[in-house]
């Protein structure tokens, strides 16, 4: 079972839901796909048992073999290779690592070198396994690292994936092939607007989803009205409690501060199972 927790707007409580859900269930692992800003382990505080580097490939031109035929620069869609009369070089920041140039070079003058773009960490705490993807600062290929994180999905467990906020390709990479998405929102104009974008995305990808309204009493009713109008299931509402946010600030999860919250998250999971069953 794969459940991905996403949101349109950042800061709505996505990580709160992912972490607490993972801590309330059995036979579960948590995968942090928010590779630009992974936060789940701040709450789990796991013991890291394994670290794996993630590499992509970047081309390099062997100056001795290059005959300046310009085939590579003609093929490159990103203007990443410059070939002059007697010089050829790469403009690295334009390169997307697609491999066309080295494949078609008639002199085999282009070799691909490994480039470090991130790290996957596996941690463990009290039987819960957490896998965290971290994109190197300044790197841009987030979906690549997300795919590496997802290779750790275990079909025999409940996999909770924490996605990044928004609706762009990083989020798509996190939610593709999931069984269910929990969309976390807040009852404010920003929350509603971004929720609608996220709903559009999920509907275009035909993915089953439900909504959790966090800090449910700080704004107005528009989010609730929207969900009712659109026939969207509201799985859980969590009212704002200063104490919860204070614990959150310290890196203490809800269930850690008060284990009775586990019931709430177990019920959330049951509702999800029901919705999947009814489909």
């Amino acid at each position, binding site marked *: 079972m794969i459940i991905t927790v996403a949101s349109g*707007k*950042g*800061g709505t409580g996505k*990580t709160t839901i992912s972490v607490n859900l993972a801590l309330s269930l059995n036979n579960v692992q948590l995968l942090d796909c928010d590779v630009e800003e992974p936060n789940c382990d701040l709450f789990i505080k796991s013991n890291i048992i394994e670290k794996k580097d993630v590499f992509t490939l970047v081309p390099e031109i062997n100056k001795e073999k290059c005959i300046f035929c310009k085939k590579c620069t003609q093929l490159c869609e990103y203007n990443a290779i410059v070939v002059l009369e007697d010089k050829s070089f790469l403009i690295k920041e334009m390169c997307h690592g697609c491999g*066309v140039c080295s494949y078609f070079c008639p002199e085999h003058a282009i070799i691909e070198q490994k480039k470090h773009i991130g790290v996957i960490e596996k941690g463990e705490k009290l039987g819960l396994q957490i896998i965290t993807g971290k994109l190197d600062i300044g790197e841009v290929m987030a979906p690549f690292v997300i795919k590496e994180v997802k290779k750790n999905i275990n079909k025999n467990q409940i996999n909770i994936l924490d996605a990044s906020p928004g609706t762009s390709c990083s989020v798509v990479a996190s939610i593709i092939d999931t069984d269910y998405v929990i969309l976390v929102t807040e009852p404010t104009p920003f929350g509603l607007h971004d929720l609608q974008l996220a709903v559009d995305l999920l509907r275009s990808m035909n993915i089953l989803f439900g909504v959790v309204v966090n800090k449910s009493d700080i*704004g107005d009713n528009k989010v609730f009205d929207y969900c009712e109008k659109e026939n969207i299931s509201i799985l859980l509402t969590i009212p704002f409690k200063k104490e919860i946010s204070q614990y959150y*600030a310290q890196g203490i999860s809800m269930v850690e501060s008060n284990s009775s919250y586990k019931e709430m998250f177990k019920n959330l999971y049951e509702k999800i199972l029901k919705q999947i069953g009814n489909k």
Partner: protein
Amino acid sequence: MKEFVIISGKGGTGKTTLTASFIALEQNQIIVDCDVDASDLHLILKPEIKIKEKFIAGKTAVIDEKLCIKCGKCIECCRFNAIKDFKVYDIFCEGCSFCYHVCPVNAINMKDKFSAFWFYSNTRYGKMFHASLKPGEENSGKLISLIREQARNKALKDEKDLIIIDGPPGTSCPVISSITGVNLVLVVIEPTCSSLHDFKRVYELVCLFKIKILVCINKWDISKELTKNIEEYCLSNNIEIVGKIPFDKSIIKSLLNGKTVVEEYNNELTQTIKDMWIKIKKYLNNKGGKG
């Protein structure tokens, strides 16, 4: 002409809400909303769209079923896992054309990928450039580069001194495109483990670009301990904290009314924001620059 961007690292720290207040205080500048993925600034500024343009992000491959012989060469060469069951998934296709070149029967064509609209609008506080990325599309930063360039050209043409940029969350392409070449960065943090953790990553990124950085702590009284941690971190790294805003539920009321906080209220909170803006302007006018 100076460019000032507000970012947050972690989302939801109050960046856009605060940016809107700065815009209302400055009154007459060029505004850019670089949070193209899930942009919210327009909900407060209510822009009147004057120009709407399509943004072509690149290309995407299309396989002609009738010509395809299912040899699988395209699937083998695609580094982006964009081809499944001999169908191209636009969402993952980076338009590199590898499959197009490798197909033995010319069954693949490259077509333009329209991924967003960008807009030039009027607001009550100045001209605004913004965009909306279609859900699922790549947010590579190209779109952001485009609207920033449009804004710079407009600022030069209209002789405006300041461009205020509402930046996106995170630390990758979109943020990089939002901060390159600016004079000053403000990071809005909240006193939580997550936000401090993410701030450190953002700080590393901004340092790579050697841009002056300032910090504002929002909802500071949620955790006095974390606020202290942030203050210590900033002190040891010579980062100035230009303001500390208390947690205030009434801020949401102004959002619900479609107004900036400084338009809605006139109290201790708004004074804090005004004092912050004065400090920021000093940096922009005197000390603004790389360093």
